[in-house]
């Protein structure tokens, strides 16, 4: 098993009512697994899913990216800086 740290921002933090979560996952789980778990926790997360990008250790990745122990996974809703 491995631990991953999930960070939530802006509208997604509001939806999940949490800014940081930890998940215990089986080895070789992908980012997709995190998205599934978050969707299970809250139906409104599911609505956001098509509009989210995911970053692992500060780099954008696709949902089939394989996670490692202690990775930091950030759920990135549409950005609006500037």
């Amino acid at each position, binding site marked *: 098993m491995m631990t991953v740290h999930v960070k939530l921002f*802006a509208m997604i933090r509001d939806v999940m009512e949490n800014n940081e979560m930890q998940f215990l996952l089986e080895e070789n789980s992908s980012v997709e697994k995190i998205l599934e778990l978050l969707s299970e926790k809250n139906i409104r997360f599911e609505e956001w899913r098509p*509009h989210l990008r995911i*970053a692992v250790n500060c*780099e*954008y990745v696709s949902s089939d990216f394989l996670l490692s122990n202690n990775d930091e996974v950030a759920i990135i809703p549409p*950005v*609006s*800086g500037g």
Partner: protein
Amino acid sequence: MRGFQVQSMIEIAGTEIDALAILKYVGDDAAGAIDIFIGTTRNISNEKKVLHLEFEAYVPMARKKMQEIEKEIRTKWNIIKFCIVHRTGKVRIGDINVVIAVSSAHRRDAFEACRYAIDTLKKNVPIWKKEFFEDGEIWVDERN
């Protein structure tokens, strides 16, 4: 200089941004041009009166993405000095949200690089803006 001090070229600032200090920072004897973009806080959004804004950043990634912007523009254009500073926290109407400044020998490089930098920041840098109105607040969603 009051508040934020320009110590490195890429910053996330929790306090007021000093655009003149940044302008000085990118100045260079080899520069024939400086282009500076200053993003400010507007008092109207979708015909509603805005009271103030709040910016939230995923700081380590925002820094990294801003560093990548610098790397990228330095491969595309001849740039001398470069600076991006973005605000976080509560920002008042008229305050500066972001400053991007570029110096180069000739104006074309500075113009194009500066525009590219702000356009790329708006697409890829993990920073979020919340607008506060008299009757509520909303995270800005610029998907469409």
